[in-house]
Structure formats: structure tokens, C-alpha cells
């Protein structure tokens, strides 16, 4: 039965660490000895209004933590643990929690509502708590229910709706929940706290209302109540009602038409006159409508304008009122909004929405915005100049180049001059606008650019001067240089235009990165990232010498980070960030130089020193590997090829460390990629390390804690290893193939309703095929027969996937290739298998009919391989 734990709960919050630790240990012990009794005791504590608020609060938190965790695996374990508890305990706990909803102490009610929702999320999908909804609804209909109970009940309903899927409830229950919630919003009957709870509950219940929104009467009623609530006297309730409208805009776009006139008036009043919290939601409503219509346009048939869902063109219809409303918001800037990342205000929301409107309606936005721009750009109030510039920058994406080009040409000089404006905001926004212009209207590769050889010099003079401006301005200037450089990537003869300026661009970017007046690290990382883009997009034949000089400069800086005094964890973090940026630059330089034979030597000459630096960067940390250094090493292995062998003895420990880092799964994923690079670089020289690598990869693969996104790359990596070491892979075949077959089985069990899982399944499939391809090709010349026992399984798996309509292009390509590999490697041995696999012909002809050249080529090759087997 329940134990008396109040003292422990209070002591566990003591200021005295000794008392605290002892109490925590006691609680832990109770929990471990008798979990059901412990949970019951916590519930008893929570329900008891005599107990101190502090002990009840902790009791609630401990209950919640016994049922839910952020980490998915732990969460699953906790759910199993709860389900395993004796039903008599569970019903007592649930009963006590429901009783707590009537507590006069708001905090106890609130905690209880959350815990009930957690239990509901475990039990309702299992149909184990059928009476929950009924008893909650009962609270709402009892005449004598206190407002506090109704408020807590509505809150609970909202949380329950958020936790479970609408498929877990039958329609009658959904209807009853919605009725209770919508009635709770009724002004005449309820107090403000009940109405607020009801409105917030509706927000969570909206996803449940699919059927109700299809029914015109029910929909009209819900919409009427929400719109009325949006005019409540209490600002919090208005805000909550607008939040519902935002959610309705994206969830029920297709039924909104009859309400749009009302909604326009409602939102436009809010934008013009309401509190900012409400006005922000009102703007967000229109942003959400834009999101919907942009998405609809993307899926529209470009010829007929048809799509499965109708596009009502609300934005187009509302544009002449909507755009002026948004332009007005632009003048409500805050003084320091460009310096403070946490600010989100009406002018920012309005400008963002204007950008979305431009993307939605295209050219039509231009005549609505340009008069505002022209009227304000020359005014003496900086707010006007900034708003005008921001409006102009916002509409650059969406309208056609034909429409924009004359405007940009006409305003270009003005913008360049505005980089010398007296106001920081104006310069910030001007630099941002320039970066948008370069991003969207500067593409020499396709033949259009607002930049000509004639004005390039002027542009760069201005940019390289403004990069010395305040950090926020300098950061935006980096963005402008970034897109300026990007435009010249693969731009044929035009790519030479930037080459003469490269030395000074690089010098200024390095200077910006070194600035000491930088508050955060934003400008520094923007400068290095821009440097990366400049290097990536440069014309390698003309600039190799300049980049060759950059290489030692960056190496020097990376060397300096190793000398930094590290006292605090803050210092360590700064060091790590700086190393990340510099390793990033090195990675880009290595990749750039290894792209041509002529420049590869720059890397080969310096590879030893670079590698020493990377190893020292690794050595800065004891337990984790530096992700960026790992990424750069992959590029180095690719560049050096077999020469990389000499670094392996030293590097191997970090490779191991990276493969074992299941918590920072990105690091693990990158390391897996580097294993592939190393295999391709070393070929059979990687053999001495393969036992270790394979066992770590196999471990990682069976580690349920490891983020699943790393698993497909590991399978592909089997193929890389096999291809590198050929017949020596034989000893890994039983293990690797078992994993591959299990992964194949797992593919079949994925939920094919979930788009993310469909994607994941496809990645898994491609990777399984890549693994087979690598192994088959690796064995081809010598021990192909090792794979014979797996041939039939492979063909069956391919057949299964051939018939799966979720299969994407990459899977198809990998599947076709692996069939060819099977025929190629095993030759006449597979004759009967291929003869019996009638699906092959259908698969081949599907691929040969494809529009994808690469796929057709692969299929042709495979066809040749199979034919060779069949005539053998």
C-alpha cells in the first residue's frame, strides 16, 4: 500500500546537498524495491490537499518521469514498465489522478492533467483506459462541477488529444470531446479561466475534428465560436483563439472559403490595433495561408493548373488589402532588433509574410509594393528608409526576372550608396537586400545577372568596405559576398570575372573572422563560411596559386587554436568552434584542390602537415572526436589515395572513437563515411584495420540506441570494405550477410503510411543493395562462390522491392545494378536462378523505358550481364 513519502520529497529539495542526496537515494530505493507501491504513494501525495505544495509538485514530476522520457527508447521502456504493473495499482493511481483535477491548488491540477495525458498516451492506443474520456466528460456535464475542475478537465482533454492519435478514439468520443471543448468556450456560461482552457484544448483537438470539419453545420458552428472567441475581452483568450485560426488555416485550408471575408476583417483589425501577441498570430494566419498556396502551386500541373486539392488563391484575391496592411507593419521596427536574436516582432512577422505573399502571387505584388518603396526610401526617418528597403528585399523572390530586372537595375546604385547610410538598421537591411539580389538575380551560368563586368568593381569596393562596419552589418555583407561568389560557380567564362578580386576578398574575410569586437561567434562563422563558398566557386585554374597561399594561413590559425589557454568549459567550447570553422575551410580547400590533377599536388605536398594538425585537434579532447576534423580527414583520404596508409596507425584510434559515438550520431555517421573514404583510398592496405572496424560497425548496427539514420550508411560501408579487400572479406560474410538479411526483413515491417519511414526504408534498401554490390564485385575475380548461398535470397528481396510502389529512383538503380553484379560475379551458376525469376524481364523493361539516362545505362549493362548468363 501507499507509503508515507512526504519527508523524502521535501528533503530531496533541500538546500543542503547532503540531505538532498540522501533523500534522493531513499526515493530511488523505494522506486526500485516496489515500483507499483511507489507510484501509488506519489499519487496519494499529489491528491492530498493537506500536503505541502512542494512535495506534491515533486511527486507529480516523478510520476511524469516514470511514464515519459525525451529519448524514444527510454520512453518505450517506461511504457512497457507501466503496462506490466498490476491492474489494481494502476486503477488506483488513475483514480487518484482524476480526483486531483478537482484540487483547489492550480499547480496540482495542472500536474495531474499532464500525468493523465501521459498514461493516456500509453493506454488508449492499447484500449486499456476506455472510461477516461467518459469520466472527463462527466466532469464537464455535472451541474455542480466547480470552475476549477472544468478548467483542469479541459486542460486534460487538450493534453490527451495532443498525446494520442485521432484514430485511437471512435467518432462518438471525438464528437463528445469537441462538444465539451466548444461549449467550454461559451462566453455566457463560463469563467475566463474555463474559456481559456477550452480554447487551448480546442487547439490540440483540431486534428481530431476531420470529420466534423467536413460537415458544414458542425464546421460553421466551430468557426463561429472560434471567431467570437477571437474577439474576447481577455487578451490571452484572443491569442489562443487566433492560434486555433492559424492551425485551421493549414489543416482545413480547403474548407475556408466561406469564412475568408470574416477572417480577413478579424485578422486585419488584430494586425492594426490589437496587442502584439495577438497581432503576431493574425499575421501568422496569412503566412500559413501563403504556405498552403505555395505548396499547392508546387504540386499543380503546370499546363492545366490542375491539382488534387483546389487552390482558392486567397492571397491573390486579398492582395490589394493584404499588402498595404503588411507594409504598415514594417514601420514598427524595434531599435535593437538586428542585434538581438530572440526578438520577434510585428514588423519582422509582417516583412516575412510579405516575402511569402510575393512568392505566392509573383509579379502582382510588385505594383503594390513599389509606391511604398519609392515614397519611403528617401525619407529622413530611418524607419521609413529601412521599411522601404526591407519591402524591396522581401519581394525579390517570386516575381519574374523580367519584372524585377529593371527595378533592380534602377535601384542598384541607390542600394550601394545606402551601405553608407548613417543608420545601422538601414545598412543591415540594405546588405541583406543585396545578398537577396545576388542570390536570386545573379546567375551568369543561365545567362542572367544584374552584375556586369563594369559594375563588379564598384560592388566589391562597397562590400569590402562595409565588411568593416558593425558586426551585424558585416555578417549580412558576408552573406552578400557568399551569393555573389556562388553565382560564378560553373559559370563558364564568367567565372573568371571574380578571379582578380579573390586575393582581397579572402583577405577581408579573414580580417572579419579575426575581429575582436564580435559579440557572438556569428560574424566569425559567417566569414569562414563565406570564405568556403568563395573557394568552392572559384575558377580553379586561375586561382590555384591564391588558394595555395590560403592553405598555410588557415593551417597556421588551426595551429594557434592548439596553443589557446583552456581554463573553463567555455574556453573549450570556443576552441572547438574555432577549430570547427578552420577544419571546415581546410576540408573545402582539400576538396577543391583534389578536383583536378593539376592542383592535387598542392595537397599531396602538404598532406603530412595537415594530418598532423588534425591529429592534434583530435587530441584536444579525451572522449569525443571532432566532427569537422573527421569530415576534413575524409576529404584528405580521398585526395591522398594509398598514401593515406601511413597515417592509419595514429588515426585509427579516432576512427574507433567516432564509430563508438552513438550519442552524437552525426559524428558516428560522418566517421562511417570516412571509413568508406579510407577503404577507397587504401584498397587492400586497409586490411589490418578491418577486424576492428567490422566489429565496431556490426556493434553499431545492432545498437538500438543509435539513431537509425546511421544504419543505412553502415550497410553501404560493408560494400566499401568488401570492394577494397576483396576475398579477405570472406570471414565477415556470415555476420555481415545476417545483418543485411535482417535489415531486409526490417524494411518489410516499416509503417508505409509514414512518409519519413518510407524515406528511411528506401535508404535502407539502397544501402543493402550497395553492400551486396560491393561484396559481389569484391569477390568476383576469386571467391564469388561464397555468395552463392545468398543469391536466391537477394533475388527474392529484389523481387519484393520491384513490386513495392514506394520504391524510389535510387532504390531502383541500386536494385538493377546489384542484379547485374550478381550475374557478373557468379556467372553461369546463377543461370537457373535468373531463369526462374520471371520478374527480371518486367523490371528490366521498366528500367529501359525510364527517362533517366543513368538508369537506362545501368539496366542495359545488367541486361547484358544476365543475357550472358542465360546463354552460358
Amino acid at each position, binding site marked *: 500500500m501507499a507509503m508515507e513519502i512526504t519527508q523524502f520529497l521535501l528533503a530531496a529539495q533541500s538546500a543542503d546537498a547532503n540531505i538532498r542526496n540522501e533523500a534522493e537515494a531513499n526515493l530511488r530505493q523505494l522506486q526500485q524495491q516496489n515500483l507499483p507501491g511507489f507510484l501509488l504513494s506519489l499519487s496519494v501525495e499529489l491528491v492530498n490537499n493537506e500536503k505541502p505544495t512542494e512535495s506534491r509538485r515533486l511527486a507529480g514530476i516523478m510520476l511524469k518521469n516514470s511514464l515519459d522520457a525525451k529519448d524514444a527508447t527510454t520512453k518505450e521502456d517506461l511504457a512497457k514498465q507501466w503496462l506490466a504493473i498490476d491492474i489494481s495499482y494502476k486503477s488506483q493511481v488513475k483514480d487518484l489522478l482524476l480526483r486531483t483535477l478537482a484540487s483547489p491548488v492550480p499547480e496540482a491540477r495542472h500536474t495531474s492533467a499532464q500525468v493523465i495525458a501521459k498514461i493516456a498516451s500509453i493506454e488508449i492506443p492499447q484500449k486499456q483506459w476506455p472510461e477516461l474520456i467518459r469520466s472527463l466528460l462527466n466532469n464537464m456535464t455535472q451541474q455542480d462541477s466547480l470552475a476549477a475542475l472544468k478548467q483542469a478537465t479541459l486542460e486534460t482533454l487538450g493534453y490527451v488529444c495532443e498525446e494520442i492519435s485521432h484514430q485511437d478514439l471512435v467518432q462518438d468520443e471525438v464528437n463528445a470531446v469537441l462538444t465539451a471543448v466548444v461549449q467550454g468556450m461559451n462566453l455566457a456560461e463560463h469563467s475566463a479561466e474555463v474559456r481559456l482552457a477550452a480554447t487551448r484544448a480546442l487547439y490540440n483537438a483540431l486534428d481530431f475534428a476531420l470529420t466534423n470539419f467536413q460537415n458544414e453545420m458542425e464546421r460553421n458552428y466551430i468557426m463561429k465560436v472560434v471567431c467570437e472567441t477571437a474577439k474576447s475581452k481577455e487578451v490571452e483568450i484572443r491569442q489562443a483563439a487566433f492560434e486555433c485560426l492559424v492551425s485551421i488555416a493549414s489543416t482545413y485550408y480547403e474548407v475556408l472559403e466561406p469564412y475568408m471575408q470574416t477572417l480577413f476583417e478579424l485578422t486585419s483589425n488584430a494586425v492594426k490595433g490589437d496587442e502584439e501577441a495577438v497581432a503576431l498570430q493574425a499575421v501568422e494566419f496569412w503566412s500559413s495561408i501563403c504556405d498552403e498556396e505555395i505548396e499547392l502551386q508546387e504540386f499543380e500541373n503546370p499546363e492545366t493548373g490542375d491539382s488534387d486539392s483546389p487552390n482558392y488563391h486567397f492571397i491573390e484575391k486579398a492582395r490589394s488589402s493584404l499588402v498595404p496592411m503588411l507594409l504598415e507593419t514594417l514601420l514598427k521596427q524595434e531599435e535593437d532588433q538586428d542585434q538581438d536574436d530572440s526578438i*520577434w516582432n510585428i514588423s519582422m512577422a509582417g516583412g516575412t509574410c510579405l516575402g511569402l505573399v510575393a512568392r505566392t502571387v509573383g509579379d502582382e505584388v510588385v505594383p503594390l509594393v513599389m509606391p511604398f518603396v519609392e515614397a519611403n526610401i528617401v525619407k529622413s526617418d530611418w524607419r521609413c528608409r529601412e521599411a522601404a528597403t526591407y519591402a524591396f528585399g522581401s519581394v525579390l523572390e517570386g516575381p519574374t526576372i523580367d519584372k524585377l530586372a529593371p527595378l533592380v537595375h534602377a535601384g542598384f546604385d541607390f542600394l550601394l550608396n545606402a551601405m553608407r547610410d548613417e543608420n545601422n538598421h538601414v545598412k543591415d537591411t540594405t546588405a541583406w537586400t543585396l545578398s537577396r539580389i545576388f542570390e536570386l538575380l545573379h546567375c551568369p551560368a543561365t545567362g542572367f545577372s544584374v552584375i556586369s563586368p563594369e559594375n563588379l568593381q564598384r560592388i566589391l569596393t562597397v562590400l569590402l568596405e562595409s565588411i568593416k562596419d558593425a558586426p551585424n552589418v558585416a555578417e549580412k555583407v558576408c552573406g552578400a559576398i557568399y551569393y555573389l561568389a556562388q553565382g560564378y560557380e560553373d559559370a563558364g567564362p564568367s567565372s573568371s570575372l571574380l578571379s582578380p578580386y579573390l586575393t582581397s576578398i579572402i583577405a577581408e574575410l579573414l580580417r572579419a573572422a579575426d575581429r575582436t569586437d564580435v559579440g557572438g561567434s556569428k560574424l566569425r562563422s559567417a566569414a569562414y563560411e563565406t570564405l568556403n563558398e568563395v573557394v568552392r566557386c572559384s575558377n580553379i585554374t586561375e586561382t590555384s596559386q591564391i588558394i595555395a597561399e590560403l592553405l598555410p594561413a588557415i593551417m597556421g590559425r588551426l595551429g594557434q587554436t592548439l596553443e589557446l589557454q583552456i581554463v573553463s568549459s567555455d574556453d573549450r567550447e570556443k576552441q572547438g568552434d574555432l577549430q570547427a570553422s578552420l577544419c571546415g575551410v581546410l576540408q573545402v580547400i582539400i576538396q577543391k584542390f583534389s578536383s583536378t590533377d593539376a592542383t592535387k599536388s598542392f595537397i599531396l605536398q602538404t598532406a603530412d602537415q595537415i594530418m598532423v594538425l588534425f591529429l592534434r585537434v583530435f587530441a584536444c579532447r579525451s572522449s569525443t572526436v571532432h566532427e569537422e576534423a573527421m569530415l576534413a580527414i575524409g576529404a584528405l583520404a580521398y585526395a591522398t589515395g594509398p598514401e593515406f596508409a601511413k597515417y592509419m596507425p595514429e588515426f585509427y584510434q579516432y576512427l574507433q572513437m567516432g564509430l563508438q559515438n552513438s550519442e552524437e550520431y552525426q559524428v558516428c555517421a*560522418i566517421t562511417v563515411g570516412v571509413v568508406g573514404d579510407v577503404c577507397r583510398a587504401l584498397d587492400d592496405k586497409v586490411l589490418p584495420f578491418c577486424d576492428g572496424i567490422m566489429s565496431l560497425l556490426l556493434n553499431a548496427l545492432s545498437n538500438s540506441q543509435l539513431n537509425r539514420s546511421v544504419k543505412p550508411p553502415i550497410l553501404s560501408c560493408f560494400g566499401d570494405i568488401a*570492394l577494397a579487400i576483396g576475398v579477405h572479406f570472406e570471414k565477415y560474410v556470415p555476420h555481415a550477410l545476417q545483418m543485411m538479411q535482417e535489415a531486409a526483413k526490417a524494411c518489410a515491417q516499416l509503417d508505409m503510411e509514414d512518409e519519413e519511414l518510407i524515406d528511411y526504408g528506401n535508404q535502407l534498401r539502397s544501402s543493402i543493395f550497395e553492400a551486396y554490390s560491393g561484396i559481389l564485385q569484391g569477390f568476383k575475380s576469386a571467391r564469388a562462390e561464397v555468395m552463392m548461398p545468398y543469391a536466391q535470397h537477394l533475388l527474392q528481396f529484389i523481387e519484393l522491392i520491384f513490386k513495392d510502389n514506394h520504391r524510389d529512383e535510387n532504390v531502383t538503380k541500386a536494385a538493377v545494378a546489384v542484379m547485374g553484379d550478381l550475374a557478373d560475379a557468379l556467372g553461369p551458376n546463377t543461370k537457373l536462378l535468373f531463369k526462374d525469376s520471371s520478374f527480371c524481364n518486367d523490371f528490366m523493361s521498366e528500367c529501359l523505358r525510364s527517362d533517366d539516362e543513368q538508369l537506362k545505362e545501368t539496366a542495359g549493362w545488367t541486361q547484358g550481364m544476365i543475357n550472358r548468363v542465360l546463354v552460358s
Partner: protein
Amino acid sequence: MAPHDLRRPFKRPAISDQQRRRELSLQRQSQNRRDAQQQARCLASSVLSLQSQYPDPVPELEIEPESQPQQEAGPLTKDLDIRQASKLRGPEVRKWFASQLMLPEWMIDVPDRLSHDWYVFARPAGKRCMVVSSNGTTVSRERNGSILHHFPSALPSGARTKDPSGSAQSYCILDCIFHELDQTYYVIDMVCWRGYSLYDCTAEFRFFWLNSKLAETGACDAPSHYHKFRFSTVPVYDCDQRGLYSAYIESVPYAKDGLLFYNKHAHYQTGNTPLALVWKDEKCSQYVIDTDSKGQVLSQQQVVLELQEDGKLSTSDDPPVIFGCLDGEFIQKSGLQSGSLLKFAIGNGGLSFVDGKLEKSDLNYLGKSNRARMFADSYSKTDFGFMSPAEMLRESICPCELYVSICLDKVIFQYMVRHTPLKFDDLLASVSPSDDEENKPCDVEMVD
């Protein structure tokens, strides 16, 4: 519980480079993986067998003098695929390329089932070469490995243009004849296409692929900035009466140099193969009978043989074919050294055949062959252009009887042309419908 975050990206940070670098790395890695697997696929066994299994090398018509490569590939070049080979430099690369073409034998008699198993087409006159497009450029190499042209082309990876499919492995190898007059590469076979090896595919498949793929790339279009030479396919016919007649008689945009016959089932076999045959007469070639450097028909058929240490005369085949021997005294008197290449004319005694095989021949010594010439005849074909008339030591002509242990198709073909040519009518007759009736088992040897 909490409504979704209102904040949207504002003056969206222009750059999120780390993710970009990660993605670019992933892209590079998966591209490299694809390339590596692709390369493994292309290392089809036959590509690498650089030693010719068919020692009977068939000379080709080469009007211009050129140095001849050494035949065997050194150990260095043994295990290379075409991409690695393209990185070789200097003599190595020439050595490698020299051994990569499929060389037809001369048609001395008509193969069985000609109409069933063979294609026929008119061979363009010109320079036989291997065209490789890769890494944004195209290189054509003649049979001796020397570069004919280095040029941009519309072939995949053949020019530095923005080609989305232009992966590093997307190279092509075409077997071509460069026709000077219209500056066109006539593609007579496709060896690799977009990195896929077609070595192991039948001629039937290769020709199908060639015809369906080449035009798609725009390689057959008129020359342009990124496409310096036009490519063209040649009309290939089934070798029935109609096809044979078409190939023989129909006009083509190029000067014909005989007819080529390709066995439909044969794979691309580097070096000489009896599954590709060449035949010519005066009507379909102006070069039926060997000519000198001025294009004049020689009065006598000539052959070049290598003098061995023991005085034996051999062809340059591997293994060498002993043609006969010179007596020691003559060698001494003429100051000849072993390894010298000597030229002989076939005298009036001619060649004697027994059962269609050369048994005995009447050879007259003409003199030393030009030093630049590295190969004995019958492999390299009789390019008399190497020997200026002044060099011919006519006074030392020495008649000698030579015993021939093996007959060389070239020698025989040339001899037959002069004496008992295989006529077009004979070919036509062999594919006559009545011949179709016979139900011979297919005895085509598959090259595998």
C-alpha cells in the same frame, strides 16, 4: 500544449555551411562509391587480357607511315582499366592503347552460316582509332597509341560543359575510323559507354547500343564550339543477300575500304579475332593490292620478316612464326644482324597451296626495312612507305627457298588477290537462299 513557434527565419541567415559541407561530403562519398563499384563492374575480365590470345595479327591498311608499337604490354600495364590507362604517360600509354582494338582477320574463305550469324558493313577508308571521352575531353588514338586529335566532343564527358550526368566515370570508348575527307569519325564499334563496359556484350548488343545511344548525345550533329568533329554510325546489315549487296553497292558518304564482317555473337576481343573479317575487291576499295608510298601498286607482293639469331626468318607474331631461313654466309656478306627486318618480294614461283594452306613460297630478298619500322610484317601490314627506293639493296637480291609452317591470312589474301581472288559473287553465292536451307549446327566459337 504549446502552440507552434511563431518565429520564422528572419533575414534568413544566408549561410548554413556545416550542413552544406556534410551534404557535399556525403554526395562525394556516394559518388565515389558508385564510381568504385562501377569501376569494378568495368574491370570485366576481357578488358584486361592485354596479351592477345590470337597470335595472327592482321595488318590493316595504313597509308601513312607511322612507328609501330611493341606488341606485348609490360607488367606495369597489365592490370589497368581504361581509366587508369588514361593516366599513363609516354610510351606506356601508347603500348596500352596499341593493344586495345579488335582486329579483323582477312577473309580467305567464307565462314559457315554467314547469313545467319554475321553482320556486314562497308568499312570507311581512313585512320582506325580508339576515341576516349572522359573528364571533359576527348582523345583519339591511332593503333600505335599516338594521339590523332585532342578535342571537345558531344560524347558523354567529352567536353567541359555543365553535364549533370558528367561523373568522372562517365567515360566512353569508341572504335572509330577517322575519315579525312569529311573530317568525320565513323564509329564502327562501341566498347564502353558512360562507364559501362560493353566488352562482354555481343556485337548484336553493341551495335544496337551504338545505334540507339550515339545520336542521343548530339555527337552526330554538325561540329560546334564544344563539339569539334562530327561522329557518324555506318549502316550495318544482316549478311543476307540483300544486306551484302547493299553494303557492297550502295553509296555511303565515305570512301569505302572493303567490307567488314562481324559475327553477331562475338564479344569485343582485343587483338586479332577470326570472328571479325575483312574482305575487299577493286570495286569497294582502292587499296586492294598493296601500294608503295606514292600509292602505286607494287609489281610484286612484298613481305617483311625478322631475322632471328639462327638465321630463321619469322613473322613478328607472338609466338613468332618461322617463315624460313637465310644461310649464314649470306647473312655475313650482307652484314645483317639478328633482329633486322628484311623485306622480301614474292617471286614468280609464287606461293604453293596444299589444301588451301600455303606450303611453299618463292621469296626474293629486297633489302633491309627502314629502321623506324619496329615490326615484322604480317602483324603490322606491308607499309612499304617505310622504305625509300634508294634504300633497296637490289643488287643483293638472293633467291632462297623458304619452308612455311603456317600460313598468314594476309599473305594469302594478298596472294589470292593477285592470283585467285575470292570474288563478290562467291560471297553472294554463299548466302543464297538455298544455302539457308541447310541446317548446319551453329559452330560459332564464343569468345569468353
